[in-house]
């Protein structure tokens, strides 16, 4: 049996993955834990934060390793991970991804940033910061993001060797999707190799953020009776930009014929159509896209008859400058909430 590199006071080595539904963190967690159990002689549990969340919404996946065969008695979420793996850098915008992270531990981030940029972006107090441009590698190798991230996890962990993880991957994907295995292994290997790693000492620049169980402002004293919601349409305060996987629709107003097809196909109601007087006539005009809600499905690109909406790579654009919001709706509190 291999020895775990570190253990907390209960004897566990813990990994927390912060991800988005559809990126495969849950399955990666299962593969990694399974490899630990069958190939490394460890004991493990693997589980995820479940809800009725759909593709594109934040999800956490947890692995808890132990060297003994005794029942792993802690069922709850990993609060202080030895290794924190972040599948999408935009998660930082809406979630306290670093909550519970202890000084000196390890963060793996999917990004094209350098480790020192990533440290400042995530506000990491100290520890090992590992950056991997997993989106690029995954798209080049035509594989899933999670296999690239597993490559990175393998190298950084030290004990989850590539051989055992690739073996476990074959066990999970190999039977169902044998054709994809070659790309998966390539993606894994590049994830293993293409890392930018830097250690940061505790220079006091950033503080640890405590892990907190979610508690809302609304509780039993002020929750409207029966669970009724008195607000109107307040999901409009949410920022859904983390649902996008690197692609955005780009609106080219000069080509637009204002036919309304994009507005009719957009599931997220991102298109802003407004009545205006043009050349002395009352006309309905397509003003553009509100990227706060755009999940990057590209339905609008596909449906546009005149190529006035085209696909672009999000990293090439500043969506905040491009965002258009309604001027004639009934907003009285146009803030954005963080959860």
């Amino acid at each position, binding site marked *: 049996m291999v020895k775990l590199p570190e253990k907390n006071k209960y004897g566990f080595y813990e990994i927390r993955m912060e991800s988005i539904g559809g990126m495969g963190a849950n399955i990666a967690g299962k593969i990694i834990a399974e490899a630990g159990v069958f190939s490394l002689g460890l004991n493990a549990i693997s*589980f995820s934060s*479940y809800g009725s969340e*759909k593709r594109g919404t934040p999800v956490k996946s947890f692995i808890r390793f132990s060297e003994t065969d005794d029942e792993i008695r802690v069922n709850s979420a990993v609060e202080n991970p030895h290794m924190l793996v972040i599948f999408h850098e935009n998660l930082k915008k809406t979630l306290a991804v670093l909550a519970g992270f202890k000084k000196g531990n390890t963060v793996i981030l999917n990004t094209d940033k350098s480790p020192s940029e990533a440290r400042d972006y995530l506000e990491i107090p100290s520890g090992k910061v590992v950056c991997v441009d997993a989106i690029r590698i995954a798209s080049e190798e035509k594989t899933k993001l999670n296999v690239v991230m597993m490559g990175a996890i393998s190298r950084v962990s030290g004990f989850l060797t590539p051989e055992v993880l690739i073996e476990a991957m074959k066990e999970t994907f190999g039977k169902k999707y044998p054709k994809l295995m070659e790309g998966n292994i390539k993606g894994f290997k590049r994830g293993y190799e293409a890392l930018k790693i830097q250690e940061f000492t505790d220079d006091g620049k950033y503080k640890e953020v405590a892990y907190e169980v979610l508690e809302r402002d609304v509780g039993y004293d002020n929750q409207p009776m029966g669970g009724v919601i008195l607000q109107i349409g*307040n999901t*409009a305060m949410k920022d859904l930009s983390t649902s996008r996987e690197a692609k955005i629709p780009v609106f080219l107003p000069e080509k637009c014929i204002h036919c309304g097809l994009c507005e009719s196909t957009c599931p997220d109601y991102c298109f802003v159509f407004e009545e205006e007087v043009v050349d002395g006539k009352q006309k309905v005009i397509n003003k553009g896209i509100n990227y706060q809600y755009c999940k990057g*499905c590209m339905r609008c690109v*596909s449906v546009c008859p005149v190529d006035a909406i085209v696909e672009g790579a999000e990293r090439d654009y500043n969506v905040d400058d491009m965002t258009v919001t309604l001027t004639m709706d009934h907003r009285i509190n146009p803030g954005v909430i963080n959860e």
Partner: protein
Amino acid sequence: MPDIKPQETKFMTGNEMAAMAMNQMNFHVMGYFPITPSTQIAETLDYMKANGENDVVMIPADGEHGAAGICYGASTGGGRVGNATSANGLLYALEELPVQSGTRFPMLLNVVTRSVSGPLDIKGDHSDIMYALNAGWIILMGKDPQRVYDFDVIGLKVGEHQDVRLPVIVASDGFFTSHQKRKVKVFKDNKDVQNFIGKNKPVYHALDPRHPVTIGPYMNEPDLINNKYQLSQAMDKAYEILPQVLKAYGDVTDREYTMVESYQMEDAEAALFILNSAFDTATQAVDELRKQGVKVGVVTTNVIRPWPYKEIQEVFKNVKALAVCDRQESYGAHGGNMTLEIKATLKDDPNNNTKVISRIYGLGGLDFSMSDAAGVLKEAYEAAKGEKDINNFDYIGAYPGKEDYKGEAFNFFKPLTEEEQSHGKIEVIKNEETGFYDVKGVSLRKLGCVPKRITSGHGACPGCGIFPNLNLFTKGLEGNLVFLFQTGCGMVVTTGYPHTSFKSTYIHNLFQNGAATLSGLVEMFYERKRRGEIDVGDHFTFVMVTGDGGNDIGMGPTIGTALRNHKMIIFEYDNNGYMNTGYQLSYSTPRGATTATSHVGPAQVGKTLFGTNTFHKDTTQIMAACNIPYIAQVAESNPEDMIKKAVKAQTYANTEGLAYVKTLSACPLNWRSEPSIQRDVIKAAVDSCFHPLYEVEKGITKITFNPEEKGKKVSVSEYFKYQGRTKHLLKEENKELLEEIQGEVDRRWNRLKAMDENACL
């Protein structure tokens, strides 16, 4: 005598272990209906079946009530039957439970515990399982995946014992156990499991022509009490036999369980009693407190029916104070059911002086942390010392909220006025000659700026079809709306507390009952209006929104509502499956399609069900047979057509009665299809007449888009080729199946054309 049979190590969840047990025991029949978090049991069993690992006949019921009926019927046939459910599924099936036990047919039901609605919560607590306490079933509690498997085997053996003959529930914690992968052991050889449970020897069964029997007679006094006395005795017998079976199981597996399990109880002055997964967390808290010299222990039970009263009395006999933690409450009784039963049990021991306090924890899936456990243990310890006054009853984890919180400050929109919701851009004209309506002025561009009824920020998957459909449909509706959504993706992604995407009033009810619920509200509106309790000027259009799943389980109430012809609209988004629970087959799933409960494998080609004529359900024609004033099929590929039909639906719903409109709604995630191309996928369904566009206005059928006339007709494979779930149907080996489907699509289309041509049809 120990005779350990070979075991194999696996890494599995509680749900996978339940499926594994049923797979190895090779049940005859499983009747089921998907409900989170128990769904994976049927899914895993079906996956194993598709790979030829078992011969279990999987029967996808129309709801949990139907599933329980299927299981009951099958069990009267003398074979082995299994089912799995959770929460409202268990409650919907509840009336069948005493039938099963009262007529004494054993079966196995895995209950993956979850909070009972409402409001709807899909996470784990014990509010569901406690409803089964009085049902006459043996109830074992599987606190971890290993026990789920072991207790499935043990439970069935006890239930099938000649002196017992009772059905069995094995309850495990939703998500905590059902979805957590752990290192576990299973029998290597299925035969060893089958030998352990032995042959099922039904006392009576319905399939013996030489011995006809009457099962379930009409039985009043003075006989019923004797039937129940027998049941009571059978439960006593189970109490006697269970330890023997636990012992025998230990002999073949080296995993021997006791009825009640305890940790550090030998010298404990105070203790905690807690069921299932939270027990492990509590043992860790005991270790921490013991380090500080606090003498505490923790107890759980592996069985709650029959109730282990002797073991409970024994384990607590020297404990000064005991905190019973319940993951549910018997509201008004100041405790959950375990508190009440343990208090009663200790009262029966004349030498017992234990002080019992009750704590409600973990409702709706709230985590029970080690500090929660330590907190309760400390309270019990303080109660034991008599140093402090400790509340007899309290909740752990409920909080008051911020004092200065002002909900309104977080409001985002002002309510839309009726005028703002009435854009007046569309004209409806009644043709006085025909009595039908003409709709004019529908332009996508003009309607692009109409205020939306549902706002952005909902959590649907990228490319989801529900929201383009709702957007288009509601563009045709003017004035105030009241929405009722049945359970499904559409409601889950729009109303995650404390947020809502709705700008109108919205109601949710469970998806077997939405139509009935809204019909009640409709009649309340008209009656209150008649009595002058609602302003004369105030009007609403009532719109129920359901998926095809909601109209499987809720078909009965939908038909009932149609037959009563209430003034409302039913809008169905049919995405060909149960998507909210992860894509299990619905009756609308195309024949042959792969789903999580109709896998493609060496032994099975996707959805086949029984017989040769189980093609995708034609809900629209079922509704047409109810003779309601307006019926239509719409699709986002023909947006103006959809808006026109929405206008008509509203017109009829406000004047004559029920309007039913069905759209085919894309689910790129589960159809395994690129989100960007979904309008093309829907177009292919329309052009192939898999989903023809037509309306039935006061009994007269009219095709509103005829792809043949436009030279656009394509084969059904055009619809299938875009989707990973149906692509395999285009392969050579499935040619016959594809032809059968095409034949059925053509038959329905030709019939529709005949109806279009002939007003009498």
